């Protein structure tokens, strides 16, 4: 709840920059809100609804139709796992499973301590390095489940967590 209240002025200013927006502006506004706030909070969804005169259920429905929107704040370390064609061929499914297991997280979720968040993306544009993941934008290439475990261990160490 506290993040929502802290974020409130921000969502208001984003919406203020779309004074005459109508329902057809929903997706660009959702994208902008996510860009600036990291995710779509309840507060943001409700306020976007008020602004565009759309029910919250409808906004949630639209936002869940697309993979790009998330409803939980990003973790301190945001991990993207590529599931594009080249990575798939090179075994990204087992990479994803390894990440999920190491973090005990489902795609779209954020760990309770706020340290990690996990996202599955269609292609990171680094097909020659497949399979790849990124941690806060830094690429890790040619991965295997064992390498994934080491990366996560290193990140935890860096964060000072056992």
């Amino acid at each position, binding site marked *: 709840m506290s993040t929502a209240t802290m974020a409130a002025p921000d969502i208001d200013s984003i919406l203020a920059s779309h004074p005459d927006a109508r329902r057809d502006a929903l997706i660009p506004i959702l994208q902008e809100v996510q860009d600036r706030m990291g995710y779509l909070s309840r507060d943001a*969804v409700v306020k976007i609804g008020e602004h565009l005169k759309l029910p*919250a*259920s409808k906004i949630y429905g639209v936002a869940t139709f697309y993979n790009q929107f998330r409803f939980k704040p990003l973790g301190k370390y945001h991990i993207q796992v590529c599931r594009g064609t080249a990575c798939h061929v090179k075994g990204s499914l087992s990479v994803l499973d390894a990440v999920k297991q190491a973090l005990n997280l489902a795609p779209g979720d954020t760990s309770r301590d706020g340290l990690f968040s996990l996202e599955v993306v269609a292609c990171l544009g680094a097909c020659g390095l497949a399979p790849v993941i990124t941690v806060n934008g830094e690429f890790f290439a040619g991965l295997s489940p064992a390498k994934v475990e080491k990366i996560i261990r290193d990140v935890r160490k860096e964060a000072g967590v056992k």
Partner: protein
Amino acid sequence: MLNIEINGKPFEAKEGETILEAVRRAGFEVPTLCYIKDLAPTGACRMCVVEVEGMPGLVPSCSYPAANGMKIHTHSARAVRARKTVIELLLADHPNDCLYCSRNNQCELQSLAADLGVRDERYAGAKSSYKQDLSSPSILRDSNKCILCGKCVRVCEEVQGVAAIDFIGRGSRAHIGTAFDEGLNVSSCINCGQCILVCPTGALTERTYIKEVVAALNDPEMIVVASHAPAVSVSLGEEFGLPVGTDVDGVMVAALRQLGFEYVFDTSFTADLTIMEEGSELVQRVSTGGVLPMLTSCSPGWIKFIEEFYPDLLPNVSTCKSPQQMMGAIIKSFFAERMKIDPKKIFSVSIMPCTAKKFEAARPEMMHHDVPDIDAVLTTRELALLFRMRGMDLQAVTPETADTPFGERTTAGKIFGASGGVMEAAIRSAFFLITGKELGDLNVEAVRGLEGRKEARVQIDGLDVGVAVVSGLTNAAKLLDEIRAGRSDLHFIEVMTCPGGCIAGGGQPLSTNKDKIRERMKALYRIDSNEAKRTSHSNEWVQRLYKEYLGQPLGEKSHHLLHTHYAEREVLL
């Protein structure tokens, strides 16, 4: 006029008519799953496809306009095969546990599968597995049984203006849910149950309380009391094959006694009582410059709606509890005292055409020292099931009359079941309360009928009273917007959540067919025209209740037992 041909028969279609409308007018039947009469078609389910000569593919008849010269085949081999495939694909992701489903034998998916001769599981694959949403006291959602026709979504948004639910996710993960996929209980759902009436499968049903009621009936310590709402007796018969609009009042009372209810009361009695309180409140508001227009408070879906969407207009809502809750309050006070029964030993069951009444009965405002005034609410459908469970044949039961003191009603209380009924009853009694004379013609035709909004001006002793009657909450919202914008010629507004009133309530026998609803409505007005006592103030037992217990309308005791206040409700809108 458009000259078309349907199954080889020439037919004149109207300009702008869809193929489906023309086909049905011509006396042919095309099955549908997602079609809702009077709402814009979505063409989602593809059951209504027909073959039109010269067109490359099959045509969804619900959304395709008829055109001059069309030659339509409703049951060509191709059309029938396509429909069968649609059903087979739907069944591939369906639990197929019909024997255990509350919709068994009343399921559109099931009957279409039967009619199309589906005899084996042609497509098999992984099935969806969702948790049931048991969070609401009124409505149970089981997404596993959902076929994504979207009717509930459309009714919730387009008829009720609530939009508590929508499609969530995409592809094989698509399902119906609330904002943030949470329980209905924390959503803006108003519990009206119109979604249940349109659901073709068992995905939406009422939360049933039959078990609790049967347990109370079997408990020798408990005095179990039933009270039935005005709209129940004119619709229950449909569940037993009687013609639509048959009044089974006496038979139902007798059958309830056979089930083991010690006392059977009529909620129309407290409808009369409501009129005494609400009529007095209106007279008081008009004469003392109170907040106007006054809005009725009988319909619990509507109450939750205004708490969520129009909290600024809550001061306009009558402080009267609904007839159900007035009944509960006087059963657990006056009745308990008279009969020298501990209120905790009384189990009061309300038989309602409504699912929102289940929510209302559980509201904290409706408890006294943690004892609910109404212990359980059964819908018309649940009562029918209870009768069937006990092997009772309504046609073989001799009618009986309800019990005193809350069994006597006037027809003014009875017509509460139809949109406009509360208004008509209120006008009859308000006229008497103000002038001391009876209204010359008791029939107030202007407020009757199935239209979403009815308005009238009534002359009472030189006072020009503006009244409006709305049902279906999008109609209510439009009127409330006018009031917010400053409209001030209205004194009294009746709002019913369901289109047409309680006769079309979410707990009624499954149907949204307007002709059926009209027959139920006619039945109520037939009762009204056939009986002598047609005004709430002429109900002798209501008068006795005031004399012996309550004092006077709006008096201290009434205030304590029969009135309440509602407050703004925070939900995700």
